[in-house]
């Protein structure tokens, strides 16, 4: 049984509040270099996309979808890195070795999810490491712990008895990954957004 850390995100519960982004920035001290006041630029390991609004006012639907490194089982970023700075760890995490990274940016276009960012100050590529330092100690990743909607479950997808595996199992067809056509086998799963009665339109999948 291989370990594969992952996260399951219930899109019905995500409120689009961005707390996960700030939790991540707070965890990794991303801000000192970046001043978000206009005219400067920062970066973030997580982005929360608004899917929609689709339809026409007032028959609309939309939901929010947090996106970050999918810790793919078959990660193309690892393949393309000429310095072997990106590697897959035994617990399934895909990590970037800061010392080995030369900042060549080859990984950026290789990732189908556009989740690798350049840290220009350090001239290295950076991305979500699923808070390796926390999960090692049995804590949840910072975003999961913070989540204002209680939308995220983290755990070992390789372990059938873990909460995340059980939830994924229980959700059946409602559980999906992004861009399956890329065959990277992501470890971030989503629970499909179910429309309520007022949103009288079908969501294309």
């Amino acid at each position: 049984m291989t370990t594969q850390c992952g996260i399951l995100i219930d899109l019905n519960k995500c409120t689009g509040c961005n707390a996960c982004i700030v939790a991540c920035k707070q965890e990794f001290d991303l801000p000192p270099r970046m001043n978000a006041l206009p005219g400067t630029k920062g970066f973030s390991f997580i982005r929360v996309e608004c899917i929609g609004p689709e339809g026409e006012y007032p028959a609309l639907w939309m939901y929010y979808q947090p996106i970050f490194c999918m810790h793919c089982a078959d990660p193309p970023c690892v393949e393309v890195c000429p310095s072997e700075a990106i590697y897959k760890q035994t617990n399934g995490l895909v990590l970037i070795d800061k010392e080995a990274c030369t900042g060549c940016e080859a990984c950026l276009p290789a990732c189908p999810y556009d989740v690798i960012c350049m840290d220009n100050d350090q001239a290295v590529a950076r991305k979500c490491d699923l808070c390796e330092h926390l999960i090692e100690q049995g804590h949840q990743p910072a975003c999961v712990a913070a989540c204002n909607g209680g939308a995220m479950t983290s755990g070992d997808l390789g372990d059938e008895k873990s909460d995340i595996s059980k939830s994924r199992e229980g959700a059946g067809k409602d559980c999906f990954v992004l861009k399956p056509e890329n065959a990277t086998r992501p470890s971030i799963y989503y629970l499909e957004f179910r429309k309520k009665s007022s949103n009288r339109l079908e969501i294309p999948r």
Partner: protein
Amino acid sequence: MHSKSKKMPNKRDKCGILKTTCFLCHGGCVLRAHIRAGKLVNLEGDPEGPLNLGSICEKGKAAVQYVYSPYRLRHPLKRAGKRGAGKWKRISWDEALDITAYNLLKIRDKYGGESIAYAWGTCRVVHSYPRHIFYNGVLGTPNGIGVGHICLTKTRMPVMNMTVGPIPGLAQTGILRDIDRADCIVAWGDTLIDSRNDGMGGVGKKLAGKLSGGCKLIVIDPVFTRAASKADIWLPIRPGTDLALALSWLNIIISEGLYDQKFVAKWTNAPFLVRCDTKKLLRESEIFNGGDSQKFIYWDQTSRFVKVWNHDRYMDFENTEPALAGSYGILLKNGSEVECRPVWQVLQDNVREWTPEKTAKVTWISSEKIRESARMYAGSGAACIEWGVSMSQCSRSTATNQAILHLKAITGNMDIPGGNAFWHIPGYKPSGTPLPVGQEEKRITGGYVFSNPAMSPMPSAHQPAVWKAAATGDPYTIRALYGESSNPLVGHEKPDRFILEALKKMDFIVWSDITMTPSTQWADIILPVNTPFERDWVHDAFDMGLFAGQAVIEPVGESRSDFYIFRDLCRKMGNPDLWPWETERELCDWKLESLDIDFEKLIKTCFYPAPEIWNKHEKGLLRSDKNPGYPTPSGKLELYASLLEEVELDPLPVFSYPPECYETTPQLAKDYPYILITGSRELNFPYFHTQYHYVSWLREMEPYPPVLLHPETAMGLGITEGNWVWIETKHGKARFKARVTKRIHPKVISVCHGWWYPELPAPAHGVFESNANVLVDPQGATDPASGTTELRGLLCKAYKADGPPQGVKDNSEV
């Protein structure tokens, strides 16, 4: 595959963990503060927090940046140049407080306390300390212009007061609720998640869990908000027409028999007779010689005769059968006969015209949705209405709030598990000092009855009238201002008119705040105050009970809690006895004295649950005489408000259109074709009104002041996403950055409020550039009782601007 991970330094290493409660919105998330070497390094949600259940929000997560912001004031300042020139000199606390005490005393003694106004904001610096001891007891001024009529309290507390009477604590606002047991939640003009409103800070997780578990959500909002996207029914209402919708819901619920008949008959004044000629409640004194003018009359169907309702000796309508419907000829003591109808009949007649079809035309919501939603609200088990401030920010606020309160009442959803709860902790001590004799009468009320303590448990002066007085001397001159974490140049209406003038004219201005703001720039003395994380406090204005927070770090710089400022000013101004506490903890312990807990013990959980006692009206827990019923003049829940009748206002809600709209001002609508919303919390999202624009992690989510426009509207105006746009009303204009989205009606435009540019040069900080309050008019139409103004339904036009305001760097614009 290999493992060569370089260890991240774990933020939690070598950290002490202290529990506290966040107050960066209206608070309530219990957090675990990670402290290393005396510094706050991280905050996490505490799983034991009864509201947040372990979650935290973007503001709480960004708190470290807020607490250690370079924008924070770190020591007291004294004005060095001309007032408002932005030149400052650092001084000691002693000097700052001496100058303040000297000037305030001089002005108070020469011109009277009423010549000093005080302004307080929505208070991220915690409500718990008894500021009114200083304002009432030491300054002796009735002219508080805190959030005033902008806040829901100004209308809602009196509306609750006239309907259910004075009840303790924040329950008086009618906003408290029992989410845990609700089967249906109605977010009426309330963004729920974005607003992080009173006592419901981090409720997102709870709410998301509830909705997944099948709890219904109805969202009433002109904009398809985050909350609306999760709703079972979203009612896309035309701004300013909430009253029509409420009347229609009442109509549907009554005519379809979906109301709680027992509650209405037994606990409300539904059976009391109303005279058809005067439209007033019939009194005993009108029919019997020697009758009491405070006693009301009902028709007994058994004896077919009038009966007197005896509110002193609360009893059931024993052995009688009060009529709720019909019309009765009643013989007055002067011999004439007058036609009377029970309140319930009058109320029904009042709402009958509001069919879903007619309402659809007024509110722009489809009649099917109106029907379906009314049935869902009344037909679900326990339902709570979460009413936002929006329907209080219009010139029909009293009627609108009253109608919505009627909905809660007649569906039997008040103070029940899962309904709108009256959370209260018996024994928790409120603090305060009354005004000196004779000062109440001097309050500048603008003539609005809700400024009167007989009508409101939290009376306040009428803000625009006080600013006008300060600028013009009418009715008398306001000579000094104590500003307490308030930013009126951004937060109050039409700041470019009387407010700026007033700030220039006053003799003395002292301001306490966390950072400099465009408003504090007009002070003579600046007092740096600290954040909730540097204070010890208890606060009862929450759902579920009492929350406490503790100082998890030493104050940053020389900043202090307002507690110590007020303590020292009380001492320096000759009233040390009014403020007997040495420390915040002493005050907290005093407040908790009659409970079985002290502060030390309380901060172990940061939470003290309110007893789950429901239906307090049945148990005699609301009235001072301990009788069942409500503490109203009649002892009943007064659907027909005798208190409004007394001040010659409509005792039942009556609809009127917004003062500027297609129906009332068609001519104006030709030049200003769109309906403007200001003040939506959605567009204020990572912020809290005027606060936090300097916190980078938050600012990056919303770097520029947004305006929402429908794609059709934008296209017609030649505006594309990201363009800077002028929004202009009859009253003023300001610039915002376009967000083009289908989430808003093509005829409606929504601009953010509370915007200023901390990064632009002092003293102005771009205060009027993107300020929604420049667009509104406090001297225009107002609510006759509360004085609330039209902030949500004015007419406006929009056109493309050349670019951002001067000095604003906008890299995103081409």
